[in-house]
């Protein structure tokens, strides 16, 4: 709750809150800011390029098969004559969609699951964390193949598969943080004032672990990108003519003489991964200045 003091005739300057000072520290970190800019630009291009390029990503064009990069097709074309520039960004779009959506689910589920397990503790904690342990035991690829044989191959499924295993780490991290916050005196002060457990979690626990969580989330997104690429590399999840970075890289790897087929999608992905890593690093430094 923010109190407005204007009508009370008090000069009560609000000083920089936690998040604003984090941002001002972050903005001084050039590497992190550049990385952030690259991420934003790539995301925007993934949205914009397929819409405005006027070139279809899925139409076969027999007249322009396997062209190396040139002025018309900046990234060249593939074995069906499709423009790689457009395909790279439509693939990026799919990849980002899966990664961001999965990261969002991971954040939501991981935070609440971990915070409840850590805060309530005791038997509830034991049962909840054993469930996590059991899920950890399931081999990822095996799990995906099982899902696909049961429900058929679809993009939604690869998203479900990735989200289902990725929240486990997050919930463990959040639980650990919660355990340490739970014994802080400000949480006990809230208890002594009769604040309900749910309010304590949402008002005191989650805001105080958000810093760690955000850094971890920023590190999770590239993980998701890699996972979705791995799935599509094996032909799971996204299917032709739709594409993703994983699929493009897999194609490129099979046509090594057409070097551009591998170089551009892989290059984009590596740039993205590095940017996320640097950005997360900068975020961590900004959150925890020492």
């Amino acid at each position, binding site marked *: *709750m923010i*109190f407005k003091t204007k009508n009370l005739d008090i000069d009560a300057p609000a000083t920089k809150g936690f998040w604003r000072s984090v941002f001002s520290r972050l903005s001084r970190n050039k590497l992190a800011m550049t990385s952030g800019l690259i991420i934003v630009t790539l995301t925007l291009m993934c949205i914009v390029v397929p819409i405005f390029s006027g070139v279809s990503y899925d139409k076969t064009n027999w007249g322009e098969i396997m062209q190396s990069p040139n002025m018309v097709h900046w990234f060249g074309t593939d074995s069906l004559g499709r423009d790689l520039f457009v395909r790279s960004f439509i693939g990026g779009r799919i990849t980002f969609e899966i990664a961001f959506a999965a990261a969002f689910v991971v954040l939501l589920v991981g935070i609440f699951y971990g915070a409840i397990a850590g805060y309530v503790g005791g038997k509830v904690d034991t049962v909840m964390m054993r469930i996590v342990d059991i899920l950890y035991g399931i081999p990822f690829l095996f799990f995906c193949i099982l899902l696909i044989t049961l429900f058929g191959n679809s993009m939604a499924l690869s998203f479900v598969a990735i989200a289902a295993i990725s929240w486990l780490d997050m919930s463990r991290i959040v639980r650990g943080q919660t355990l340490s916050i739970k014994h802080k005196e*400000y949480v*006990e*002060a809230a208890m*002594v*004032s009769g604040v309900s457990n749910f309010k304590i979690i949402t008002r005191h626990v989650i805001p105080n672990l958000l810093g760690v969580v955000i850094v971890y989330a920023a590190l999770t997104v590239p993980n998701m990108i890699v996972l979705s690429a791995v799935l599509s590399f094996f032909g799971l999840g996204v299917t032709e003519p739709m594409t993703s970075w994983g699929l493009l890289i897999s194609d490129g790897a099979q046509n090594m003489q057409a070097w551009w087929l591998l170089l551009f999608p892989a290059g984009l992905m590596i740039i993205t991964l590095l940017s996320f890593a640097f950005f997360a690093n900068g975020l961590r430094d900004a959150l925890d200045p020492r």
Partner: protein
Amino acid sequence: MKKILEVKNLKVHFELGGGMFKAKRVVHAVDGIDFDVFEGETLGIVGESGCGKSSLARALCGLNKITSGSALFAGKIDLAKASSKEWNEVHKQMQFIFQDPVAALDPRMTVAEIISEPLITLYPDMKKDQVLQKVLATMKLVGLTQNQVNRYPQEFSGGQCQRIGIARALILEPKILICDESVSALDVSIKAQIINLLQELQQQLKLTILFISHDLGVVKHICNRILVMYLGNIMELGNKQAIYSNTLHPYTKALLSAVPVANPTLEKTKQIQLLEGDLPSPVNPPKGCVFSTRCPQADDVCRASRPKGKIIQEHFVTCFKA
């Protein structure tokens, strides 16, 4: 005088470890104590670390579970079996001030948010304007200025943080304040400010204070009555003059003699009763008197059975020798 808190045979035990194949061990933090707190007094609870004074204080305001016994609050609510509705009533009238002034404030909240939290929680119908007025009035009461209302705790020194903590406790206009080592972490020059503030507030608001501390100098200054604890048991209980100038229990004597006084001539000449050894484990307290393992006067009787508390010269003492 009216009793505001009646504690009878109160026990606070914690279970340790106890895995699938390990037997559970029980820490006897508070092991059956009786005392009353009267309205308007300051009762000091002293003892060394591990004596159970903090566990007692925390149990009284609901941070620890009471294992058995009873603690009757204001003659009507037994804290040992209070419902959550009754606890809310208790929270309105009994508040807690913590040891570490900085750690007791949520770093992500402004001063106003911190101080208003108890009010918003226990009086959810109160209007926002009223809440803010109350916050500002309480800040003034504890010596904070109004223009600090939107600042964050990191910008305050330890002494100011403790003032914020006191304001948070006082905004509900409680009857009892439990101070658990509330001035121990402060610098010497700030400590005196906060002690004076607590005393002024007590007079102004007719507060009852439970003052838990290991600092016998501070306790002597601020308290009317003093309760000396050792290993979860009461050793001696009485008013200040009785405890300090007519000490009966050997543990209290040792404790008082060990306090260093800011007076070199006195320090060079005084006789310190050095206690041998360490505090026994509260998991296996001694069979006889809990102090018998370190007591200079202990004999076989002391080691064989627990002494019952008795009243001598207006003291409540738990000792065979007194």
